[in-house]
């Protein structure tokens, strides 16, 4: 099996899907001649030409909406946001158009579009550039929200997302682009909406997604050193949630810590906690803990930002609280 970085795995997915289906096009800032701000689209212009790979003006509302219109007309656009932080200026197009036109028209349209790009905090780029908006988009009924943590899932889920006939928000994390891992060769189509146990454990379940999965895994090592067995469940998809996987792990460990980079109020972890207490109340031996980004705008200073981010230490502390 090849070892690829996250960006290489994403690039493979785009390249294979564009090769397979000429309705797939890529639009975004610097995706073509610059080869991608994070090099995810590297080489695609050379391979597929200017009819398929489009450098857009810095005009997120315009090109996101253009993508939705093209999808209404039968193309399968992949729209890259240089970062999801910039998607806020396209929010109306994503929510009201991609998210509602099928429903508002009584089912006359399919909107096969993927919005994708980097996200996340921790790289000292301040409040405007550090958002993890998966909870915002998960709030829109018709949107699917995918947040991969590993290169194999990034490839397999992006390929599935492009083949979906519905709008998908595919939210990558900037901190993970250089992360390397094994990726199966060829046409892998990972099922959307399925969580994956990344580490087996018996005493506490750490539920995480995207970069937070790696925080949870680091915490699991700390807990192991203290003789505590933690299971790490990587949700991979935020919407739809994989409730059977979540409830199955809870039934096994009876304790839960949710780890999420987004802000606490109505973060996706709040929904997961609700589902667990509502469906598996009797399985719980302790209140559910959440470790989230702190409820402040993201600061620039390294010291301040590290205090705001979920850390392995905070997760370990929370896990021990459930076992106290």
């Amino acid at each position, binding site marked *: 099996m090849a070892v690829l970085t996250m960006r290489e795995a994403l690039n493979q997915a785009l390249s294979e899907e564009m090769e397979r289906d000429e309705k797939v*096009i890529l639009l975004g800032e610097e995706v073509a001649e610059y080869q991608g701000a994070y090099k995810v689209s590297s080489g695609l212009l050379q391979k597929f030409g*200017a*009819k398929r790979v*489009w450098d*857009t*003006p810095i*005009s997120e*509302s*315009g*090109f*996101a*909406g*253009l*993508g*939705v*219109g*093209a*999808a*209404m*007309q*039968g*193309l399968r*656009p992949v729209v890259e946001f240089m970062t999801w932080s910039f998607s806020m*200026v396209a929010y*109306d*197009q994503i929510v*009201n*158009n991609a998210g509602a*036109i*099928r*429903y*508002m*028209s*009584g*089912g*006359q*349209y*399919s*909107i*096969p579009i993927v919005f994708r790009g980097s996200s996340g905090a921790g790289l000292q780029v301040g409040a405007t550039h550090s958002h993890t908006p998966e909870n915002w988009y998960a709030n829109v*009924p*018709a949107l699917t929200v995918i947040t991969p943590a590993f290169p194999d899932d990034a490839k397999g889920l992006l390929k*599935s997302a492009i*083949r*979906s*006939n*519905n709008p998908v928000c595919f939210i990558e994390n900037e901190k993970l682009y250089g992360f390397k891992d094994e990726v199966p060769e060829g046409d892998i*189509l990972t*099922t*959307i*909406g*399925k969580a994956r146990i990344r580490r087996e454990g018996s005493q506490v379940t750490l539920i995480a997604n995207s970069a937070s999965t790696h925080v949870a895994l680091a915490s699991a090592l700390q807990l192991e050193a203290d003789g505590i067995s933690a299971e790490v469940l990587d949700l991979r998809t935020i919407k*739809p949630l994989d*409730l059977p996987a979540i409830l199955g792990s809870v039934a096994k460990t009876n304790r839960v810590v949710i780890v999420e980079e987004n802000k606490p109020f109505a973060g996706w972890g709040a929904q997961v906690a609700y589902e667990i207490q509502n469906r598996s109340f009797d399985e719980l031996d302790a209140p559910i803990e959440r470790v989230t980004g702190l409820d402040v705008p993201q600061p620039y200073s390294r010291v301040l930002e590290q205090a705001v981010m979920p850390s392995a230490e905070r997760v370990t502390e929370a896990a021990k609280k459930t076992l106290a």
Partner: protein
Amino acid sequence: MASSGAKKVRSKEKPGKSPAVLPTLTPSERVDLLRKMVLIRRFEQKAAQAFMQAKIKGFCHLYIGQEALAVGSISTLNSSDAVITAYRDHGHALARGMTPRECMAELFGKITGCSRGKGGSMHFFNREKHFHGGHGIVGGQTPLAAGIAFAQKYNGTGEVTVCYLGDGAVNQGAFHESLNLAALWKLPVIYVIENNEYAMGTHQSRSSAGYPLVKRADGYDMAGITANGNDVDDVREKMWDAVQLARTESLPSLVEVKTYRYRGHSMSDPGNYRTKEEIAERKKESEPISLFKERLFKEKALTEKQYEEIERVAVEEAEDSIAFAESSPEPEVATVFEDIFAPEDQIAEFRPPIGS
């Protein structure tokens, strides 16, 4: 689709050589235009009545006074061309050939409506007729139009897209972003500003800097064209230039059409931002149906008696649409969970049953 030497068409002039001339309509085809205008007027009047009777709820924005604009412009299109508009969409839908029945039933929220009762007045859709909405957020439809035109060009079909917006929408960022993309990528799209002078209750003099509004085309090196929206013939002539430019050269245009709405912004508009005298004056000088009717009389294309028949049939059709809407069933509550997701066919279905 990569850019190559642009043919620049300035807004100060008409787009020079239109390769084909506007086809001359036969007298009966001209009468058909009038028939459509009258149908829209009578449909809207019936809708207003039904709204007052609380049979139509929500917002209801009427097109009365603007009929020549939708009818004239859409008459220059092929049936496979795309039409998209904002929330004042009843007139465009009817001009596009959607039936009064499916439109009125949508206003009544019935399952037989053009959007199965899920869209309402502001969100009419009929994909088969290439009527792509009905959009409720001011300016929100303008990037969609660029995208539909992008796909038309990508697929090489020779089709074009017409996107309507109000004079209030010209100050939305999405509109400017759309003009830029359309001009930059040479998309076959025509943006039509329906300038009825009021953005809801705010007169254009209090909402927009820079007149005429068509000047906004200049900044994007697009063709800018103006037309008299009370005159269906003038609308046709000017739109034809824009449509040809899009179809034969894949170049976008901005068309500003001067019009006037006789009713409020919506049915719940108290109308205190303009005088009754102003409305009466406008009706007197430039009511589009009378203007065109008189012209057809002069051309001997129409007799008084034939006109009466047109009126009678339009009223009958509007009444029939009310009867149809009233007698149509409400949507089954279970349909609330339908039409959210398109069925998957390239990957396995992955969503749990809705409501589980």
